[in-house]
């Protein structure tokens, strides 16, 4: 169990690394096109890549996809995801700039996750935030905000 948790944690950390790479390429895309067009391309390319990966996985193991019914709302993750592009385009061009937008997005995510975990929403198991978790939250959030805000709009 404990070593599994470590494995999942490392995988999550790796996802964050992929996110940074994705943003790096997508910002070049947004430089060539408009932000919304860039996001449109990225979603299209991403959709086909994911589809190929999905078919490949299913071919390898028959039981990969369970027949369990998922709630309808679970299929709609792409909607808030796509809206963030529009919203970010709006706030980046305000006095918040890029660094302010990133900083507030981090705080918004933390608040949302604390509520989800704290009340056990969306099928998550209810978690109590201990002192150790809280210290970890403050350090990671604080460190990230420090880097982002110090970089200002040179980021």
């Amino acid at each position: 169990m404990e070593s599994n948790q470590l494995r999942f944690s490392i995988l999550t950390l790796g996802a964050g690394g992929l996110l940074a790479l994705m943003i790096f390429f997508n910002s070049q895309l947004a430089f060539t096109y408009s932000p919304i067009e860039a996001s449109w391309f990225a979603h299209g390319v991403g959709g086909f890549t994911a589809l190929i990966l999905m078919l490949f996985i299913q071919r390898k193991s028959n039981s990969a996809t369970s027949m369990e019914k998922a709630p309808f709302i679970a299929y709609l993750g792409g909607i808030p995801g796509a809206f963030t592009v529009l919203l970010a385009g709006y706030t980046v061009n305000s006095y918040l700039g890029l660094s302010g937008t990133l900083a507030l997005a981090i705080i918004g995510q933390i608040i949302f996750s604390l509520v989800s975990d704290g009340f056990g929403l969306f099928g998550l198991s209810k978690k109590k935030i201990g002192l150790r978790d809280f210290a970890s939250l403050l350090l990671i959030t604080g460190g990230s905000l420090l880097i982002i805000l110090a970089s200002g709009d040179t980021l």
Partner: protein
Amino acid sequence: MTMILLGLLNGALIALARTLNGMLSVKKNAFVASTMNHFVGFALLSVLIFLFFGFPTELNLDADFSIYLGGAIGALYVAINSFVFHKVGAVKAVLLILSGQMITSILIDGVDTSSKLFLYQVTGLGMIIAGMYLSVAKPRKET
């Protein structure tokens, strides 16, 4: 103030997208979640572009092909993210993704040791790594 609320809402939407994809991953699998996420987003953006920005998008053929790589990386990112979401929980997922993202961004951009920013980057990274240690290394007392 409105902008600040919009900025916070943006973060909440990012977290919501992650949460919904995680739900689908539990019932189906992570690649189904990633595929659905991308095609639903693609459909919505298509409608928005059609209504407010005007099609057709002109393809820029001079640009380097590598700029389209972000989409492919995104497919893997969303899949991994959806897979781990329920295993580590919402808060830990945000914190570890953020850590990985900040560390990688600094690696991509490189650091300038002579700039004033360097001190902030080192301090920030130190805090992130300390926070990661606290989050991952659990105290020994539990058996």
